[in-house]
């Protein structure tokens, strides 16, 4: 337990210090959202209608792109080998690393959501709904994306290939995240049903992600 806590503390510290790049995700999120009005036009009513979708897409891309480095940096300086050989089960270590990554890179996205909601002309309720669904949904993105990160480090290939592999897997999270936000804002449907399915997706990925990532690390690293 102390080993896992130490791992989480270490990862967060590395991510937040110089060269960590956790906050670049937030900057990317901001940039994507700022780009959107140039594509769809500055009409405020339309932006408010598309707002939840834009925020969700931005958060999805931001959280996947920052995942690239989840195992890569540790692989380069050799600490990944120590983690694989340590007595802590690799699955738990993977889960701890993903949790640390979510705390350092995912949580800032949710904190930034109200500001970006302001830019997209979203009212209080809508912003709150999007922030809440992101809070519940981004762990699923991190934990499924971790599989891609583990594959990337074993193949010495990152970036585009990883995104191509992981993005189709994140479609359900996107669907239910946007559905729940829309339901809270306008929809005739209830907020509860898509929201609970979103929670379920997060919980499922919490189980599958660490096992798949650990399996690919175990089989892939020489």
């Amino acid at each position: 337990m102390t080993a896992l806590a130490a791992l989480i503390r270490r990862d967060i510290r590395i991510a937040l210090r110089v060269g960590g790049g956790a906050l670049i995700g937030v900057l990317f999120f901001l940039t994507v959202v700022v780009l959107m009005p140039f594509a769809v036009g500055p009409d405020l009513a339309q932006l408010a209608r598309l707002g939840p979708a834009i925020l969700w897409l931005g958060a999805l891309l931001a959280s996947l792109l920052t995942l690239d480095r989840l195992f890569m940096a540790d692989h380069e300086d050799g600490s990944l080998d120590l983690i694989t050989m340590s007595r802590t089960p690799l699955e738990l270590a993977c889960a701890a690393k993903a949790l640390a990554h979510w705390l350092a890179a995912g949580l800032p996205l949710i904190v930034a959501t109200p500001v970006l909601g302001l830019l997209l002309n979203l009212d209080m309720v809508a912003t709150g709904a999007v922030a809440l669904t992101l809070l519940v949904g981004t762990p699923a993105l991190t934990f499924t994306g971790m599989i891609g990160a583990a594959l990337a480090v074993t193949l010495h290939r990152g970036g585009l290939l990883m995104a191509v592999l992981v993005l189709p897997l994140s479609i359900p999270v996107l669907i239910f995240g946007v559905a729940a936000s829309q339901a809270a804002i306008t929809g005739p449907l209830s907020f509860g049903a898509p929201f609970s399915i979103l929670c379920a997706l997060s919980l499922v990925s919490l189980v599958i992600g660490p096992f798949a990532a650990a399996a690919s690390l175990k089989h892939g690293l020489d």
Partner: protein
Amino acid sequence: MTLIDLANPTRFLALSARVLPWLAAATVILLTIGLYQSAYAPDDYQQGATVKIMFIHVPNAWLSMFVWGVMSVASLGTLVWRHPLADVAAKAAAPIGASFTFLALLTGSLWGRPMWGTYWEWDARLTSVLILFLMYLGLMALWRAVEDPSRAARAAAVLTLVGAINLPIIKFSVDWWNTLHQPASVMRMGGSTLDKAFLIPLLVMAVAFTLLFVTLHIAAMRNEILRRRVRSLQMMQASRIAFSSDVGTGSRQENASKGAA
């Protein structure tokens, strides 16, 4: 004959060389019968002659999912039992599965043009098949991204199994998404309400396409095994040239191995 007996690639090559002509012949015969039957099937009272696209479309769609299942079993073979031919089977199946998926999409959209008035409809079923197609392409990109086949095999196996768990979830969520955005306005064919005149050709075609897949798959596996042999021979040759101090012996050995191959 158990699966483990096939672990020796040479034995697999010998056995498959004997089986393959019979499989190919059975495929051709069944395909001929199926195509003949579907060509002479009566027109549907609503859809007219376009109903005949179904005889191609449905077997393709069924195989697009079946092939992922085959790849998942092969991936289990790679990761759990370390069967030497499992990753060959998984790799050979991916492009075939992608082709079946693409044909299912293509025939579906050709059918959709006269029936729905559009080539593409964001219908739940179409969308989830499209995502399946994207995942096939991603998997093939993964196979191509890495030189070492065994390393790529384990990565692809993990991804295939994750996909196998995720595909039903994606299917379910796309269904939800579609009903949320638009009510079911598209016409659907009830599978069980099919008339015998349509059902029998369809079943024949389904069996014929499955046989076609098995034939193509075994042929592709043979190709993959031979390709790997060529690759290892080339690497042996390259290392022999690189490590021989005398250039003369290197080139002589090169000639010798060429003769052996």
